[in-house]
């Protein structure tokens, strides 16, 4: 049984601090080249390997990440 997760990032509230990146165990999240309305690069799950561990959401200073998880 594996865990499959998805994150939803509130793009306009992400400030691109990159604190979350180092804490992702599968290194699936990264900053994207695009910028939000305030000019910050924002974080996204770009490799689709999220396990829904919630590490990024717990450490995010702005609380912009919502995490969903299913067992598959």
């Amino acid at each position, binding site marked *: 049984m594996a865990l499959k997760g998805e994150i939803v990032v509130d793009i306009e509230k992400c400030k691109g*601090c*990159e604190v979350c990146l180092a804490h992702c165990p599968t290194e699936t999240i990264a900053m994207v080249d695009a910028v939000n309305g305030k000019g910050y690069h924002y974080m996204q799950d770009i490799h689709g390997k999220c396990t*829904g561990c919630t590490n990024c959401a717990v*450490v995010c200073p*702005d609380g912009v990440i919502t995490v*969903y998880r299913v067992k*598959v």
Partner: protein
Amino acid sequence: MADTITKAEIINPENLVYKKTSMMTNNVLSYCPGCGHGTAHRIIMEVIDEMGLQAKTIGVAPVGCSVLAYDFMNIDMQQAAHGRAPALATAIKRLHPEKTVFTYQGDGDLAAIGTAETIHAANRGENFTIFFINNGIYGMTGGQMAPTTLEGMKSSTTPYGREWQRMGHPLKMTELIAQLPGTYYVTRQAVHTPVSVRKAKKAVRTAIELQQQNKGLTFVEIVSNCNSGWKMTPVQANQWMVDNMFPFYPLGDIKVDGELVKK
């Protein structure tokens, strides 16, 4: 089939495992990117939410970066004069002993201008909780030296580093508070990694629970970064904090159940 589950199927309310608590308002935080204040706000509000205390809690906001805490915390808040949050919280707690009362203060507020209020509230054993966010600098006004600034640390008023001969030693406020008989639970935490955030949240919960048992003052210090004051990126600032702040401000419980923890 494992391969056929779609993104839309996963993003469903029944699969939700983590979401920002509704005790935080939807306002965009006024803090710099990567600032520990946001995480500290959130874990306090998560504990208030989990304990069902939204209507029974009164917070006191300080002066400093977190002066706008009342815009972000979705509970009853009061704004104190600079450093006077413990005095105000004393009055609130004495008038409403059934309410949960906490102050949320930075190091410039609690350890400099408000030292007298803090020490005397702790010595009287008032039944409220102090959350002390220590980043070793005056962040809001442009990174000046604070009492908690480390020796040799550069700030805008100590451009060659702090020397104790002229500028004094850094003040370990939490150890000082722990010496007073009025305090019951004194601890130091951080919020830079998921592990430390979870530990800090547990400490916040312990502090609020002990306050409800009227045990005395509970004090939670959270060592935080100030990346704009320290002139670093958020990730560098967190690393600098681990390398320099933690040796001087070691994490862990300092006083538990009214007894100093023996090291």
